[in-house]
């Protein structure tokens, strides 16, 4: 176990960037851990892997990885990633984003890349608020949630990001939480191996931001909230309709895994057909 | 030798294509040409205008200042631009689509059967090509084969024969017009 930790740290982490900016109890570090282990398990050539992100705490992750990284503008990571991938299809593109970056300002790029099915792995760290700017309301804040821009409790309905990804056409969609690190890692591994737009949503605690304002206590209690309020998809699907209605828990697991023509492959198929020697 | 030609018509009559072909013909003939256009958002009806400047030298001002030739295939187009016509220029209208008396300015004025000829050939759509054929012989600024080459490369292949015929008919009409003008002069 320790050998593996040392191996991951030495191979993938950018030494000069530590200590990180993340708060005590932040779940983003766990997502980084899962992602790097997934990459290692897949056996990706790190020289041919590009990490792309937008703006936010989640989007800081590429800076901590010793690899090519592109830290772009708020919400636009996926658009940049489309260019990076198409201009050199040999690269593996991994996008780190947050709930606000992806589904707020970045919503349009998210749904179109899913629709086109451009080969990339999008890891969305969903902590129910805009953490970096001081815990404001985000498109995934639960109803009644207290944030800096919903001081009386959120009155808006939130997105179900995974449902949005499925609706937009993403062929691989998985939803986990940081309390399930093994499953999160395996989902990311599968997403990377999948040729197509892979979307992995990871519910993550933000104790200093959302957590503190919503009486989700620090550390283990905050994590336990996720354990208590989530239910695996396979178990959920066995419920009767009535049980499903009464359930009230967040359904997690591998939510979609289908085969679909992938954009890069389809484009170069077209090139093959019309190319002029 | 700067020659300014202004074509006006209704949207859908192919006047802009005519302007493009005319300009391309000039390039084929080793001259310089600039073609511009304006039209409304409607694809049929509305006003359409194409302008072509042809010169042996470099062309600076790219639009018509005072047209040497005004060709009008629609009444509103004619009404709008006839006011700007200068002495010594040539005005050509379609005898059926435009109703007009000779303008008060000293100019050559012809009413030609473009629409009628197109109908005779079986399709009104080639009216603009017939007109180009006539313009070719009337203006004399582009060699016939060079302009015909431009026609050929701008029309769909399956209508090539029809368009060549239309062009040649138009050319003949123009030749007769010039002959008649010379006879009238004497």
């Amino acid at each position, binding site marked *: 176990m320790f050998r593996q930790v040392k191996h991951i740290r030495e191979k993938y982490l950018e030494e000069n960037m530590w200590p990180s900016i993340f708060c005590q109890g932040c779940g983003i570090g766990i997502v980084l851990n899962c992602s790097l282990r997934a990459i290692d398990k897949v056996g990706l050539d790190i020289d041919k892997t590009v990490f792309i992100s937008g703006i936010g705490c989640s989007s800081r992750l590429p*800076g901590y990885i010793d690899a090519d*990284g592109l830290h772009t503008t708020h919400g636009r990571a996926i658009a940049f990633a*489309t*260019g990076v991938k198409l201009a*050199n299809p040999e690269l*593996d593109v991994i996008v780190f984003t947050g709930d606000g970056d992806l589904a707020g300002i970045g919503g*349009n790029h998210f749904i179109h890349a899913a629709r086109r099915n451009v080969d990339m792995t999008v890891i969305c760290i969903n902590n129910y608020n805009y953490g970096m700017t001081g815990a404001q309301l985000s498109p995934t804040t639960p109803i009644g949630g207290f944030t800096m821009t919903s001081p009386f409790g959120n009155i808006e309905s939130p997105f179900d990001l995974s449902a949005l990804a499925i609706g937009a056409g993403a062929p691989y969609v998985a939803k986990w939480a940081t309390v399930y690190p093994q499953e999160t890692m395996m989902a990311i591994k599968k997403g990377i191996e999948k040729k197509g737009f892979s979307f992995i949503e990871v519910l993550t605690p933000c104790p200093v931001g959302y957590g503190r304002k919503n009486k989700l206590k620090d550390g283990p209690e905050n994590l336990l909230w996720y354990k208590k309020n989530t239910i695996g998809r396979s178990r959920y699907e066995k419920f009767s309709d009535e049980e499903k209605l009464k359930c009230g828990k967040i359904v997690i697991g591998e939510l979609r895994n289908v085969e679909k023509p992938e954009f890069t492959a389809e484009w170069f198929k077209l090139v093959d057909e019309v190319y002029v020697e | 030798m700067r020659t300014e030609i202004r074509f006006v018509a209704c949207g859908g009559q192919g006047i802009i294509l005519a302007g493009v072909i005319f300009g391309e013909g000039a390039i084929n003939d080793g001259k310089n040409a600039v073609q511009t256009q304006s039209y409304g958002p409607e694809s049929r009806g509305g006003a359409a205008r194409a302008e072509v400047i042809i010169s042996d030298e470099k062309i600076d*001002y790219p639009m018509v200042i005072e047209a040497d030739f005004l060709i009008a295939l629609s009444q509103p187009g004619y009404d709008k631009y006839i006011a700007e016509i200068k002495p010594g220029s040539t005005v050509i209208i379609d005898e059926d689509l435009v109703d007009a008396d000779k303008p008060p300015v000293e100019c050559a004025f012809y009413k030609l059967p473009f629409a009628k000829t197109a109908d005779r050939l079986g399709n009104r759509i080639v009216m603009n090509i017939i007109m180009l054929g006539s313009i070719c012989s009337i203006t004399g600024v582009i060699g016939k084969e060079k302009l015909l080459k431009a026609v050929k490369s701008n029309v769909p292949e399956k209508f090539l024969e029809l368009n060549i015929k239309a062009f040649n008919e138009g050319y003949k009409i123009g030749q007769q017009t010039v002959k008649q003008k010379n006879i009238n002069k004497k």
Partner: protein
Amino acid sequence: MKKQKTSFKIKARYKPSRPFTKDDFNRVRRVLGKKVMFAQGEIAISYGGLLAGCRFFAGYPITPATETAEMMSFLMPKIGGVCIQMEDEIASIGAIIGASRSGAKSMTATSGPGFSLMQENIGYAAMTETPCVIVDVQRSGPSTGQPTEGAQGDIMQAKWGSHGDYELIALSPSTVQECLDLTIEAFNLSETYQVPVILLTDGIIGHMREKIVLPEYEDIKFIWRKETSAPKDKYEPFKDDGTKIPEMSTFGAGYHAYITGLTHKESGYPSTDNQADHDRLVRRLCDKIRINSEKIIRVERDFQDTSENKTTGIISYGVTSRTVNYIVKQLRQTGLEIDHLRIITNWPFPENEVAELAERVDRIIVPELNLGQVCHSVKEAVAGRCEVVPVWKTGGLIHTPQEIIDVINRKAD
């Protein structure tokens, strides 16, 4: 652990921007067709891009710039490049920046409203020193304005549209041939200075048809960014080697470069709390262009070296140069002496060249298709040496020769 590669092997028919050999160039020539053509400005721009080695185009439909995107969607797959219609203009400019870092010469085309949307990412391209070409086919504004009518209303926006301190390059073609030639030039400048370059054309030249002659391989220069050959553990993506221009690396070459829009050190890593780091960075970004402005600026002088008592000079750019060329010839025939300075590089602004003209004349006429943009830069460069007389026209029609002649004659009394 089984080693598993997930990505595709690039198919043989994908052609990267580099190397760009004579064979590659001639392949593009074969696809484009004849050497001499009668074509629109926008088509000439797409041809210029492909002949310069552009292999990635991303755009969004907008009047009057659609022809460039349509031609690219038709030609790009034939030469083995990528053309994608993105979901909006912001995505388009994002994609071309990403593609550029992945090793493709990349380009987008838009008009006023789209150009406004792109500004944040243009600032990002300037901050991250990513080469790319943005074509703005200017149309009458503000806002939706007159979509089908040309104008010259985005000149200031091209330089000042994004926030903060940065410099970039903008070029204005005056003929359809220049649309082709200056697109090639735009790519070369972009690669040399690692900066976004704006091609400021307008709806008139964009849609006008004129003769174009395609260049031969020997006629053009193919410039590729200064790439690093530093050892991987010593490489710093934003280090100044004395030229103010860093050594770039391409994603996938093993350099592990971190590219961010945050203020960063030479290593690429963020340094937002350090005043000295920020100052050093933005000064270098600006100096990179400013100290090289002599090499970058292009103007055309049509000066008369006649008497000392010349009163009139005139400055033009883009489509107004066509009218000005015409009247200058006419006016000289009537005996008026007039110097004509045609600006090709709107940014960096040719202040020395304008000052030189101001020394020779009593007044400079500045016709523009807007309510005053370049005339302000002219006034600044003139610094009181002579009068500056703007001639503004809006609504989509270009100045008639008489309109400018009237202004010149009126003032001469």
